[in-house]
């Protein structure tokens, strides 16, 4: 059969095999992956999307309604009224909670039935059950929900880099992507695509520095790994480390650094969650970090951030099809394999180590939840923040030897400086890491 695989015109023998990739891709209630993802706060809408009327929405395969009551409290309830199943998207927001339009049953934001006006005054029906409800939280213009067991409510993951630098402004974004959530996670775990899709093959989307083929590495962090690329670009060594944090968070440095000066920066451009709407649809949702560092290499206009907006080419479906074919972007790479990529037809190479690692870590965590264990959660530091590790290092090293192993070694050691200093604030970590990285460079150069 291996002979057949390499013969010309062998399509007949290589017909795709449909695969039901159940473990990692199915997210509905009761599925192993769905149960795992439910153990984390998940953002699902921008605050600006929920106005005066209730909004029907979907998260992890569940049909839900989100609304603001007249006391400005946000509620997230099962979509269908517990009485007779009418959708609460037609409910009327009340002073407390929402009233079903059909018979006026009034549900509080926690699902408690406050009133069943059509029932006799002495009816105790409302004491017997409630409307399904989930806790929600608004943070910097995003709405988060927790759909897991109430007894396992995790701490809210407020990342340290949201406040770094002090003037950092978070611009919420949400892009509807018609594919499974795992495809988005895998894209972030695949740093070599930044060279090909974003610089060499599809067009000059990232800076020219990305045309240089890098050394790849995937060192572990407390809740995931760095998806990193180390390049020698002219007189500089350029390390770009994205962070992949389980289950579906990513922090990504910008791709526009032209490499003309040194930097040691924990200042990613984007924080994103790959949130499963259902098995076939996802939200690429999170923040763009608008600050002096990112704006020194690219323009960030609030007009270019929001629902189905992103300040970088190729992230939405909104370009003409032919333009997308001429210069494809991430959106096209994510969606074109189909709603759920058929992983049975893949042939993974050495540069796909990050993709394999992401799958292995997620599968392991899913199995742990299946066994009744609590999965690894974002840990809060003493200041109440979750440390994050995505960074960019640009350091002058004109005499660095033309030696890929040494370059990879330097990249890994330098990146780990940012991880190992995790008890420091981002600003202190940047300062301290710079000193350590310069020492590492000296050591590697002298050996």
């Amino acid at each position, binding site marked *: 059969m291996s002979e057949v695989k390499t013969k010309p015109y062998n399509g007949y023998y290589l017909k795709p095999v449909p695969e039901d990739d159940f473990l990692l891709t199915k997210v509905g209630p009761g599925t192993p992956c769905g149960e795992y993802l439910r153990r984390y706060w998940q953002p699902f809408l921008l605050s600006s999307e929920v106005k005066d009327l209730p909004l029907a929405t979907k998260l992890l395969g569940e049909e839900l309604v989100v609304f603001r009551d007249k006391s400005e409290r946000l509620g997230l309830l099962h979509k269908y009224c517990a009485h007779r199943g009418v959708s609460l998207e037609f409910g009327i927001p009340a002073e407390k909670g929402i009233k079903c339009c059909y018979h006026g049953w009034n549900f509080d934001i926690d699902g408690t039935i406050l009133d069943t006006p059509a029932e006799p005054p002495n009816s105790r029906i409302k004491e017997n059950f409630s409307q399904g409800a989930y806790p929600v939280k608004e943070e910097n213009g995003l709405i988060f929900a927790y759909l897991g067991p109430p007894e396992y409510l995790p701490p809210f993951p407020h990342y340290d880099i949201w406040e770094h630098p002090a003037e950092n402004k978070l611009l919420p974004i949400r892009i509807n992507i018609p594919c499974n959530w795992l495809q988005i996670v895998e894209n972030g775990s695949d740093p070599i695509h930044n060279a090909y899709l974003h610089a060499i093959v599809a067009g000059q989307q990232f800076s020219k520095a990305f045309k240089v083929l890098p050394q790849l590495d995937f060192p572990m962090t407390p809740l995931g790994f760095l998806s990193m690329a180390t390049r020698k670009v002219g007189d500089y060594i350029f390390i770009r480390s994205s962070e992949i944090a389980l289950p579906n968070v990513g922090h990504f440095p910008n791709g526009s650094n032209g490499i003309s000066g040194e930097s040691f920066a924990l200042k990613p451009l984007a924080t994103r969650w790959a949130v499963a709407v259902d098995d076939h649809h996802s939200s690429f949702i999170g923040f763009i970090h608008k600050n002096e560092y990112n704006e020194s290499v690219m323009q960030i206009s609030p007009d270019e951030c929001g*629902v189905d907006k992103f300040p970088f080419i190729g992230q939405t479906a909104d*370009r*003409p099809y032919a*333009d997308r074919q001429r210069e494809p972007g991430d959106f096209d790479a994510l969606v074109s394999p189909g709603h759920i990529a058929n992983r049975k037809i893949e042939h993974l190479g050495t540069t796909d180590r990050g993709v394999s690692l992401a799958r292995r870590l997620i599968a392991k965590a899913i199995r742990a939840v299946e066994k009744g264990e609590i999965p690894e959660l974002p840990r809060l530091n003493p200041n109440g923040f979750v440390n994050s590790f995505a960074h960019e290092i640009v350091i002058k090293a004109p005499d660095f030897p033309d030696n890929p192993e040494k370059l990879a070694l330097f990249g890994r050691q330098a990146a780990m400086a940012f991880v190992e200093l995790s008890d420091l604030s981002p600003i202190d970590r940047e300062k301290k890491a710079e000193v350590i990285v310069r020492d590492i460079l000296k050591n590697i150069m002298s050996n």
Partner: protein
Amino acid sequence: MKYINLNVNAPGAMAGSNLVIAGDWGYITGISPIDLEKPESSLPELVEAQTRKLLKNLDQILDYEKLNKSSVVSIRVNIINFDRLYDRVLPVIQDYFAPGKYPGISCNGVLANRRGAQVEMDLILYISN
């Protein structure tokens, strides 16, 4: 009748003439974000940017006939994905005109525009000499 065609060497930027003048009235029909000089170039990704590009094309046509935006009497805007994009297109159009001197504007949701553009417009101008 007068038929205005800015870039005869770049056919395809618009389906017909850039501007047709009939008496005191001018008609610009099917103007889109397609570049008038290089119609083959990519369209901007976001609908706001496409609308701004379309209005730049309008400026170019008006300049050519020494007209200005105050001669625009009405606009019909054709938008794909109307529910999603209407709120994003309208403020860009309103920004283009002087406050209090908006032309009449109607917006239609359409299945598709030429070259996959998200927005296209038809305009009527009053040309007083």
